[in-house]
């Protein structure tokens, strides 16, 4: 069996193990990342991961000193990383107390300084006989394949712990993320909860370092969470979606990199997560750009149609003698040239609107080269004009707007009036005026 297929079918024990560990980590990071995103501290993970670098170096040096050749003891390195990551976040927190240094500056300072210190330590380690082969740069750029079963069990166990904590403190974290001031006022230990959340972030960062690389591990915290935002507005479903995205991108990344040896797992995992983000950005049910665009297009079409029918009615209105019924509107011809003059619209826009109206059977095109309103068109036109004029009247009577200024405002508002708004306006109108098919335009009609 060829190698890529073997990897994809999970024939290797090692691939299976790595897959399990990474997927669990992805799930965890989705859940914790959502909380951090809601708390508006998305980039704290970045600082934690950069601050973990000197910890790895120090732990390696310490272990190597203690037992030459034993520096690459995974749990030890993780502990070191977690310690300096925590130290870094404490520093950032402390710096925020200086009045002159704002949060983002504190984060950036911590990040760059700890990273610099880490690089200093790493270059020193490079000189050691065991340092070259220690593979510490895997921590920087990530190499999931270098994980062995024992490390993975550690990652899986720790991920389970993180999941359990999130599950147990679901309510508290929700409160913290949405209204920390209310939480504090109701007596919740907000400081401790924040600390715990930061601890979870450090856990995820440190655990993800080996597989994704510390430069990119923040992506696991940010990308799935940001993707989930486009699917739902409720926290718990959002966490589930984020967990799904995180787990899926981690799994796909590991599988792809196992199948294609040149693909580095870390980068592929992040790109998969980015792909998930892109898809959510476009197609997400709540705020996806495609849906937004479709909605906007639909609204634009409806507005255009309303405008066209209203223009038709206003063109025919002078010919509508008081004796004639509104039904006679359907017999009156509308020439293309008149319609072009009726509003400031381009010929192309008018043509497309006319097509739309013909398709919807609001207008018909007769043999004499003129358009005529159909029954449905007449009803819609009257509705559009009513809406426009009722709003104009409302503005004039209740907002004391000058009659000359109301046309433009009504043009913008009429399309947004809901049926119950219309009902209220109708009632208002009927209380003061006799029943007419359409209120008379309160200002000089058809400004030419």
């Amino acid at each position, binding site marked *: 069996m060829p190698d890529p297929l073997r990897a994809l079918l999970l024939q290797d024990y090692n691939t299976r193990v790595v897959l399990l560990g990474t997927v669990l980590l992805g799930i965890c990071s989705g859940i914790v990342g959502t909380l951090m995103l809601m708390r508006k501290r998305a980039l704290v993970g970045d600082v934690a991961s950069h601050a973990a670098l000197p910890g790895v170096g120090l732990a390696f040096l310490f272990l190597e000193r203690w037992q030459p050749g034993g520096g690459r003891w995974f749990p030890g390195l993780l502990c070191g990383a977690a310690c300096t990551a925590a130290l870094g976040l404490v520093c950032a927190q402390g710096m925020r107390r200086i009045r*002159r240094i704002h949060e983002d500056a504190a984060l*950036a300072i911590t990040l760059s*300084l700890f*990273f*610099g210190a880490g690089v200093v330590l790493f270059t020193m380690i490079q000189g050691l006989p065991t340092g070259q082969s220690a593979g510490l740069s895997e921590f920087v750029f990530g190499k999931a394949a270098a994980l062995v079963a024992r490390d993975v069990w550690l990652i899986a166990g720790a991920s389970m712990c993180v999941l359990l904590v999130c599950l147990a403190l679901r309510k508290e974290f929700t409160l913290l993320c949405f209204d920390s001031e209310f939480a504090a006022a109701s007596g919740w230990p907000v400081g401790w909860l924040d600390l715990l959340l930061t601890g979870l972030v450090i856990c995820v960062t440190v655990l993800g370092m080996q597989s994704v690389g510390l430069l990119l591990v*923040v992506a696991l915290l*940010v990308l799935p969470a940001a993707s989930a935002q486009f699917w739902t507005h409720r926290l718990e479903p959002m966490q589930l979606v984020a967990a799904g995205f995180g787990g899926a991108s981690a799994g796909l990344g590991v599988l792809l990199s196992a199948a294609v040896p040149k693909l580095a797992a*870390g*980068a*592929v995992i992040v790109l998969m997560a980015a792909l998930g983000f892109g898809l959510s950005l476009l197609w997400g049910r709540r705020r996806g750009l495609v849906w937004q665009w479709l909605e906007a297009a639909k609204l634009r079409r409806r507005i255009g149609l309303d405008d066209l029918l209203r223009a038709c009615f206003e063109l025919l209105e002078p010919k509508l003698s008081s004796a004639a019924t509104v039904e006679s509107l359907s017999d009156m011809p509308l020439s293309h040239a008149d319609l072009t003059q009726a509003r400031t619209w381009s010929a192309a826009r008018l043509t497309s609107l006319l097509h739309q109206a013909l398709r919807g059977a609001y207008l018909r095109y007769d043999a004499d080269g003129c358009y005529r309103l159909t029954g449905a068109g007449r009803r819609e036109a009257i509705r559009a004009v009513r809406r426009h004029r009722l709003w104009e009247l409302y503005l004039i009577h209740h907002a004391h707007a000058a009659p000359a200024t109301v046309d433009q405002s009504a043009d913008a508002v009429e399309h947004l009036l809901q049926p119950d708004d219309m009902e209220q306006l109708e009632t208002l109108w009927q209380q003061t005026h006799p029943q007419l098919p359409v209120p008379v335009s309160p200002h000089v009609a058809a400004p030419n």
Partner: protein
Amino acid sequence: MLMDWSMLDTWIVITAALAAMGCALPGTFLLLRRQSLMGDALSHSVLPGIVLAYLAVDQLQHAGWWSTSTALAWRHPMLFVGAAATAILSGALSELLARAGRLDANAALGVVYTAMFAAGLLLIRLAADAAHIDPGCVLYGNLETIVTDTVGQTQIPRAVIVNGVILLLNSGALLLSYKELQLCTFDPALATALGIPARLVQQLLLAATGATVVAAFESVGSILVIAMLVVPPACGVLLSDRLSGVLGFSLLIASLSAVFGHVGALVMPDVVRWTLAWPELGDISTAGMMSVAGGAAFLGCWLLAPRHGLVRQWRDHQRLQRRILSEDILGALYRIEELVPNAAGELRAKADLAAALSVSPGRLEVCLQRLKQRGELEISGATARLTPTGRQAAQNLVRSHRLWESYLAHHFHLELPRLHASAEQVEHFLDPQLREELAEELQQPGRDPHGSSIPPSGST
């Protein structure tokens, strides 16, 4: 070691100092606009641009379109263009995401730069056979080898020229538009109202940051770039309250970090080897050490800055506490005298005072001695009493206290038990003028709401 300082070391320091100063200028404005994380994001997201440009040059050369010499000449401009293009792209993308996707600004930044950095890393892996780009080199820079690449026949390394030009351009742009930049940074709304295109200025600032990052990148690596974009400006804002001062200090700190960083990189390895008795330890990355030196400078500023430093703040706090305690001592003595008729001038046990004010005897003693020096107390053995000067000061304090209580009771209708706590704090901050205004306002009251008499103003 420092003994064998050579021309190489000088060039390294000059390059690093130029790059650091170049970064510090736009960094100051990013810091003041609270966009410091932008530098970090930009320096990550230029990676795919650099790799693509590198690969493009390689391909052109392989395809025979460019001769080796042309490729060599065009490589650096191409890298610059590629990186600048991705920098602008990432800035625009994250802004678009923040707006269209309604994401938190930091999250949008995180999304864009991690994705782009991952793409860059992947490109490097995929193209590893075709090109020799080491991702480590992008991170750590190659300051140690800059002298191998000189300009023409001279000894001047190309990196010095590149970073020097960027520094000159940045300072030139700064001098030309100093007033506009200042206004846009501190009050964008006012700037817009005055007709300065604040948004355009912001975009230009980002573009300048991108160009600086890219230029500094190749020679000094991203670690130094992200450190120098934020650390010197942060020192600057701690040391000075004026924009020109902030800029000056941040340039100074940037160049000092370069010098001391390199010295540290030369000296530290031997020190560490000797201290730990571990001769195998390797040398230290110069760029890394420079950012550590910047960190030391920041720590120094944080502790010792003349106005905003921790030491100064701690001292001010101590002074205030001492003043309050001293005044409380005087007030307590005055009140004891009041309680016992005809007791003015009697000695009081220090222990009673300590109990009344609930402070440790040690702190009390310090304040008693200070009061004695100022001639407001007489101390004999374990007892103390007010001198006439002290009694006047005490009288003013008690007057402030009781006037404030009357004022609160009269205007805010607070219940009697709640008056004391507020007055206990405010009494230390009422100056004579305010005190008399209060008395005027309350029509020179004789008694406070508790019924105690308000002493007349002690003449000084």
